[in-house]
């Protein structure tokens, strides 16, 4: 709705007011998280609901970094990065097949991929637990990596397909006519053009794996292999009065997500509309 003519000043003021309200709604909970995280322990009860703390401290962060959270953080980084990397590679192959080939069964495969996005994922939590247990892989990070990879492939595949669709087919055909094999054409011509798409896929999958909690709760019950969400939840149920430390841990969990968000922001619209299925 491009503004044609001169809108009424009251309308303009209303618009900026509404935008400010949205920004405040989006940021206030995060501000509060950070605020409590830097409030010194002795002030939490007296100033818990003040909007601006009278003193700030890094103590909570220091204590969190000296605790088990560092290990949880490491486990989550391993799981999320491995999931993102493996998913991106596998989905790139699938997306390429979907973008460049017309083959019998394509509609069926694409229907199957859509199906995986529609059914309640919790239906498979019990069978997955059984399978993982019978393979002796309970409480191991690889069990999470394989599960998350499979969960994220359909969405990542559609996303990669949309990126490949944006690269003209003539480019690799020209390279192949000039004597390249398909693999060479892919490596020298297509791959460099796909890097932003691969980056976006990595970002989306990393964010998804970083925040998954239900399957992690089910498959990991030993402290040494807990991921960050499971560890934090465990901490919350055990020490539900140590607000400062919990929130400091929360702020730390936010950091990687924000970094990846800053990175994938440009691709949000394309990503969410191409798959159109993922939260």
């Amino acid at each position: 709705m491009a503004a044609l003519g001169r809108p009424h000043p009251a309308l303009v003021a209303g618009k900026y007011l509404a935008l400010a309200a949205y920004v405040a709604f989006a940021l206030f909970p995060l501000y509060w998280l950070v605020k409590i995280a830097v409030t010194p322990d002795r002030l939490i009860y007296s100033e818990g609901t003040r909007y601006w703390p009278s003193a700030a401290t890094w103590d909570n962060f220091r204590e969190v970094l000296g605790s088990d959270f560092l290990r949880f953080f490491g486990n989550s980084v391993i799981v999320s990065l491995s999931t993102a990397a493996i998913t991106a590679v596998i989905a790139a192959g699938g997306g390429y097949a979907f973008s460049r080939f017309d083959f019998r069964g394509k509609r069926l495969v694409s229907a199957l991929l859509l199906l995986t996005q529609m059914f309640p994922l919790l239906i498979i939590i019990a069978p997955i637990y059984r399978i993982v247990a019978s393979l002796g892989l309970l409480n191991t990070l690889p069990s999470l990596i394989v599960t998350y990879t499979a969960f994220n492939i359909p969405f990542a595949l559609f996303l990669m397909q949309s990126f490949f669709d944006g690269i003209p087919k003539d480019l690799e055909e020209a390279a192949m006519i000039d004597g390249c094999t398909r693999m060479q054409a892919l490596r020298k011509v297509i791959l460099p053009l796909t890097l932003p798409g691969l980056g976006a896929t990595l970002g989306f999958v990393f964010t998804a794996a970083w925040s998954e909690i239900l399957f992690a709760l089910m498959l990991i019950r030993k402290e040494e292999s807990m991921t960050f969400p499971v560890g934090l939840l465990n901490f919350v149920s055990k020490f539900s009065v140590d607000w400062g430390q919990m929130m400091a841990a929360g702020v730390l969990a936010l950091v990687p997500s924000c970094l990846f968000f800053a990175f994938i922001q440009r691709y949000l619209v394309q990503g969410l509309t191409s798959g159109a299925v993922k939260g």
Partner: protein
Amino acid sequence: MSAALTDTPGGTRGRLSRAYLGMVAEPWLYLLPSLLLIGGVMLLPLAIGLGYAFQEFNLLRPGAAKWVGLDNFQDLWADPQFWRALRNTLVWTGASVTLQFAGGLGLALLLNTRFHGKKLVQALVFLPWAVPTFLTALTFSWLLNPVIGPVPYWLSGLGLIEEPYNILGNPDTALWGPILANVWYGVPFFAITLLAALSAIPSELYEAAEIDGASGWQSFTKITLPFLAPMIVITVMLRTIWIANFADLIYVMTGGGPANSTQILSSYIFTTAFKRLDFGHASAIAVVLLALLMIYAAILLAVRSRLVRR
């Protein structure tokens, strides 16, 4: 074809068909890892999970699983917690989708206009989407806690509650805590999707309407909404399914309590599988949820095909 059969191997015909076979196989080769993983980790367990719904299968009670037909479903029928969860699922999904949609549409319409600092505003209002769900859940349960959160004081200031207490602790109001968190988390998604659809509407339409003397409200109802309608239907459908299946916020914020007052079907599946290790019952609930969602999707798709035809 018969000629190909009599040809000697290595003849032109044989080489051609090998090349043809290679061409047919090539896309499948690239798809193979994806298909293997999805088949092994999602579709096979899905089939097994559907089977569990018809078995007596509890890890806490030793003994092999045995087929019991529809017993699990009969138990559900008599289970008041199940009916409570079903009602809560409707409230949770209906309220979340409606509020997310209203908030998202408003935001998308605002972002589709020109204003100063648009890039920054867009990044800030989309940020909640990137916050891990467990953290969203914890943050909101802290905000709702009168010891360290301001929300109870706002609510009592507005006269919505008599004194600042934690609404998560009251069975009558607890479900609204996760709904609030879900709205915060989900508005950006709707805004992003609707924004993409909005920017696809040709601006000539608005110009023509303006020349013909249409008011802003008229061009909104006569141009914007009809153009968005098919997109809105499909997004709302996918979102509804996704939210009905979305148990994380409720599990982390209330665990289904107090007194099961916030249990929805999907969180009930999770607690039944995770805490009680009763896989038979968990799967039966999941099958009911799946059936309900399929009926819902079928209705919405029928509505959509009528909208598109018009």
